[in-house]
């Protein structure tokens, strides 16, 4: 491809638009190639692999078309359905709590000026923390024998005997969600605070002068103007939550039993421990379908919320 060379004398006459368009594609091409090779193509190829029996050879693999056989195995597997169920409600609960809690905290602290730089740094710490590290940290806090959480609750006389937080299915799920909420709520707070700063103060003043109460101001002024920030935070969180892997891997390794076995944990197990690449691909594709569905659902619910407000 020829790069357009624009000399001074040409500027006035030649078709600038055409030259700009060509250089646009030239600038865009490297990024597109990398992204397609590493994300788009692998996702599509996983769909194809999921329709095959995959046999590993010495340094490659053989595919044998097998129709929907891999999906047939999944549909009849209780373990698979359990991990779908766990992933879905884990994502819904954590994202909902993080969005609501994050918005509430942001609204409460938006006008507090003190310590602004310092609190910003503190809020960014959980976001920048390696998830494996925060999981190890929580596993020590939750420890049933010498964990500080039990010691605290016993000192406050809230529990009698030490609790094995990660030892029973329900408690393990709740503890894991709490660790996730600890790590991600500050991120939501930052996004919402940023959104709040963009709203001109006159909007609020005008609403109060018109006699609106606090709730009306929030519902009719703040919330509609925050929807961009909230939708973004929500989408990011949903996409992440559906891939949850690090936290259960370290905290419970999917247990007790398979109580915290997310789709990613199940997929990793069948792919790299049992080397069932066909079934593993089918699990990966199921995750993609679920994630897409969840994003569309989230956006449509969100839009109808906003529309309901303006009606």
């Amino acid at each position: 491809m020829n790069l357009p060379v624009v000399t001074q004398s040409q500027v006035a006459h030649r078709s600038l638009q055409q030259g700009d368009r060509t250089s646009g594609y030239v600038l865009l091409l490297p990024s597109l190639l990398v992204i397609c090779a590493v994300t788009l193509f692998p996702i599509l190829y996983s769909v194809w692999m999921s329709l095959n029996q995959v046999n590993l050879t010495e340094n490659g693999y053989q595919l044998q078309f097998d129709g929907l056989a891999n999906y047939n195995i999944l549909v009849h597997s209780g373990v698979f359905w359990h991990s779908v169920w766990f992933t879905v409600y884990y994502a819904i609960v954590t994202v909902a709590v993080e969005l609501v809690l994050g918005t509430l905290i942001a609204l409460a602290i938006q006008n507090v000026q003190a310590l602004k730089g310092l609190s910003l740094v503190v809020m960014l710490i959980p976001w920048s923390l390696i998830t494996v590290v925060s999981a190890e940290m929580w596993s020590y806090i939750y420890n049933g024998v010498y964990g500080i959480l039990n010691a605290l609750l016993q000192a406050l006389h809230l529990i009698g005997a030490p609790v094995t937080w990660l030892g029973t299915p329900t408690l393990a799920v709740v503890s894991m969600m709490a660790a996730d909420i600890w790590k991600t709520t500050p991120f939501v707070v930052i996004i919402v605070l940023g959104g709040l700063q963009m709203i001109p103060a006159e909007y609020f003043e005008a609403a109060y002068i018109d006699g609106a109460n606090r709730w009306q101001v929030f519902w009719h002024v703040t919330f509609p103007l925050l929807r961009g920030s909230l939708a973004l935070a929500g989408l990011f969180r949903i996409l992440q939550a559906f891939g949850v892997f690090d936290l259960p891997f370290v905290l419970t390794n999917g247990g007790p039993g398979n109580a915290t076995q997310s789709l990613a944990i199940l997929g990793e197990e069948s792919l790299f421990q049992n080397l069932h690449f066909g079934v593993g691909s089918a699990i990966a594709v199921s995750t993609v379908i679920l994630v897409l569905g969840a994003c569309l659902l989230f956006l449509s619910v969100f839009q109808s919320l906003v529309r309901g407000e303006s009606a």
Partner: protein
Amino acid sequence: MKQTKGERVVGYGVLILFLLAILLPFFWMIVTSFKPNTEISAYPPTVWPVHWTMEHYQNALGRFHFLTYVRNSVVVAVITTACVLALSSMAGFAIARLPIRGKTPMLMGLLMISTFPPIAMVTTLYMMMRWLGWLNSYQALIISYTAINLPFAIWILRNYFLQVPMALFEAAKMDGAGPFQTFYRIFLPLTTPGLFAAAVFTFVASWTEFFMAFVFNSSDQMRTIPVGIALFSSQFSVPYGDIFAGSIISVLPIVILVVIFRRWIVSGLTQGAVKG
């Protein structure tokens, strides 16, 4: 906006509670890393170490090849960040300022795909890496992380490029500068904050990523920090002291980055949200 005294008290109260909730678990990890093993597994726990010890730091650095993991993480994160900056500044400029058909839907699509759970692409990627002989190599992670972080970096930079007045672009053109010259001479210098924001996001994401690093680079010599720390534990014991010592070493560079670049991190995040 008028603000009652009650509101301000509530604001301070919530802020202090919130910051404490963030810091206390973190504080517990730091304190524990200086306790001898007998104190780490004592119940009820000692809040402040009775006997301070550096043994866990010595263990992490000596017994667990932690410095190798640090080196691997640094190499991968630095090269990934450089690649992402080079590619995303070009693409972000093109999307913001040059006429390309269908660029907004394309950008949104890429953004969605890049945030998909890694399990979606890791099956095929593993096969590709295996076929290329790239398992347990730096390039396996660098290429994967570059692709995953590119769309978000492009998006941040596009928002910054959009803020540079179009008049500057036209003026440069009238002076005979081509699109490439305009890009390097005018736009890049004006969008430095955006470049910093994109760099920090990419660096942090590469530094913390676990799933792909675990699947592609599991040999002891090629582990990154998250994989190394996750595999500290043996089947029979979890050496919390050593784990936390390693964790704190690995957190320090990131905390320094965050302290320096906090404003740009936040503006990178929020501008995107508003401009969509």
